[in-house]
């Protein structure tokens, strides 16, 4: 099984590498966004799926990441690649700080507090005292990076969209490896222990407060990195593009993709990127109605999302007992 999944990831990576040469520039851009969303969903999944803290305001960290990248490029003249680690670091800190008061909140109340964060964020971004940096309602426009020149010298000329895609892909791979390592390590086990039974975890010597805040920080860091990448890909940030629906879309992504599952982030990202496109053809309002119906359907029928269904299907096919694996929420 281990080898099988390794092969699976290898094939997936190969397909991901060939993809931009097969599809149009616009599709390449869409797949770049899929990668961006998958990092964001991974971040939210670390918090909600693995640690059991509900966040309805992760769009806020996505926005912070995006704004850090945009402001650094626009005002401080940073090259685009250098903004990613800064955005990650800023969001790590922001998430950790927000996680401290959030510690005392459980379940519903945390959802409420983060919902408030998500709803009020656009107003904060418009605040006129920050206007010098954030551009107020107008937002910030950033330029699209060109492919580095040595690639053309090597005989591999990439256009801007393709280069951006590969740049995002590289960071996505790094972030997924990071998450995979984190979740099977000490911190990951502590997170799941807290989710399943926080009293028992405490009794076993897990520092609940520290782990929960840290999880919030790490989760925000992932989402912030995604935000920075998203800003570079879309070349524009504005307050109203980070409304509460961004946060709720992330929640949809992890529920549909699969809670507490790393590949689930990819399925979820594909879903939130492409399903609205298809639904858009019926009506401007249709994507949200379809999201809503899918959410209810999945909650009733497939609570572990697409990843859970695939896992179950594979277990049936190989005839192996579906062993209780650590990712069950």
């Amino acid at each position, binding site marked *: 099984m281990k080898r099988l999944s390794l092969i699976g990831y290898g094939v997936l990576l190969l397909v991901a590498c060939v993809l931009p040469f097969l599809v149009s520039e616009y599709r390449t851009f869409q797949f770049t966004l899929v990668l961006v969303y998958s990092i964001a969903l991974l971040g939210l999944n670390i918090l909600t799926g693995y640690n059991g803290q509900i966040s309805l305001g992760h769009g806020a960290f996505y926005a912070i990441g995006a704004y850090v990248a945009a402001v650094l490029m626009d005002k401080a003249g940073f090259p685009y690649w250098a903004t990613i680690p800064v955005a990650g670091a800023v969001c790590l800190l922001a998430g950790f700080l927000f996680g401290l008061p959030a510690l005392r909140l459980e379940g519903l109340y945390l959802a409420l507090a983060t*919902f408030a964060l998500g709803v009020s964020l656009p107003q904060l971004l418009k605040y006129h005292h920050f206007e010098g940096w954030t551009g107020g309602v107008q937002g910030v426009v950033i330029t699209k990076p060109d492919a580095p020149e040595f690639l053309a010298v090597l005989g591999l000329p990439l256009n801007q969209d393709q280069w951006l895609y590969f740049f995002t892909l590289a960071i996505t791979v790094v972030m997924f490896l990071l998450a995979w390592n984190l979740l099977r390590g000490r911190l990951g086990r502590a997170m799941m222990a807290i989710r399943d039974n926080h009293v028992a975890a405490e009794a076993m010597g897990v520092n609940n407060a520290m782990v929960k805040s840290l999880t919030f920080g790490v989760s925000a860091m992932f989402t912030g990195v995604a935000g920075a990448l998203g800003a570079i890909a879309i070349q524009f940030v504005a307050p109203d593009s980070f409304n509460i629906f961004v946060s709720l879309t992330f929640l949809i992504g992890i529920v549909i993709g699969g809670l507490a599952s790393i590949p689930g982030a990819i399925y979820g990202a594909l879903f939130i990127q492409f399903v609205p496109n298809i639904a858009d053809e019926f009506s401007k*309002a249709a994507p949200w109605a379809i999201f809503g119906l899918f959410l209810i359907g999945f909650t009733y029928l497939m609570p572990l999302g697409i990843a859970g269904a695939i896992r179950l299907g594979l277990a049936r096919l190989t005839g192996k007992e579906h062993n209780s694996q650590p990712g069950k929420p």
Partner: protein
Amino acid sequence: MDALLHQILAGLATGGIYASVALALVMIYQATHLVNFAQGEMAMFSTYIAWTLINAGMPYWGAFFLTVAFSFVFGVVIERVVIRPVENSPVLAVVVVFIALLFILNSIIGWIYTYTIKPFPSPFPEQPFFGNKLMSSHEMGAIGVTLVVLLLLYAFFRFTPLGLAMRAAAQNPESSRLVGIRVGWMLALGWGLAAAIGSVAGMMVAPIVFLDPNMMGGVLLYAFAAALVGGIDSPGGAVFGGFLVGVLENVLGAFVIGNELKLAVALVLIIGVLTVRPSGFFGKVHVTRV
């Protein structure tokens, strides 16, 4: 001084609307220990129904009461059909269903009525009551309607057998079931009442913020803040919280932080109350046994 007084009174008027939505939230919280994220959207839905009825030529108050009745039935149906299957699920599943409901209602309305902003009539006359210059008649009317709703609710829960049964079902479902109260239906009634109260709030706020599918977003946030400030399980507290939040929002918005950051007031209130005093002013303090 006049400006301050004016802001306080205007705050009381919007506060009345927050109080109504907060009251709806508390109704559902008391019955099911859930916070309904779709409450604002449900109220918006009802308001559009009212708008349709009024545009079809119905007199205002006829449309008003018909909408309230419809919302009640609508709330009951939602509880029976959508919420019941996840009643005993983990919190995340319930929150997800609420969010789904929010999406569906929002997009149905967007689909039918488009996202353009529409004016909504006020039942109260143009010129202010008694010739005062501090409050518009709609603001006074909205406060009046809120107080009437409150009084009716109080009377219902205090003096009718059904109200007593609902309180019993909320407080101790097991024992209530033993004495023959149909707890499931009491929860559904709670949802119906919440939806009806929400529809009143929607119709009172629509002349101020105008009718559009996202009109309740800010109101819902203030209502959350109001319910938490007052204590999420205390109806009286929710009303107090509503007026307090309304006044705070208006006074701070006008004199201290500016209109741009009004929503941040709600954010700070919510996080502040939840971390410092989760039970609010009037709520019960919960102690959990390990």
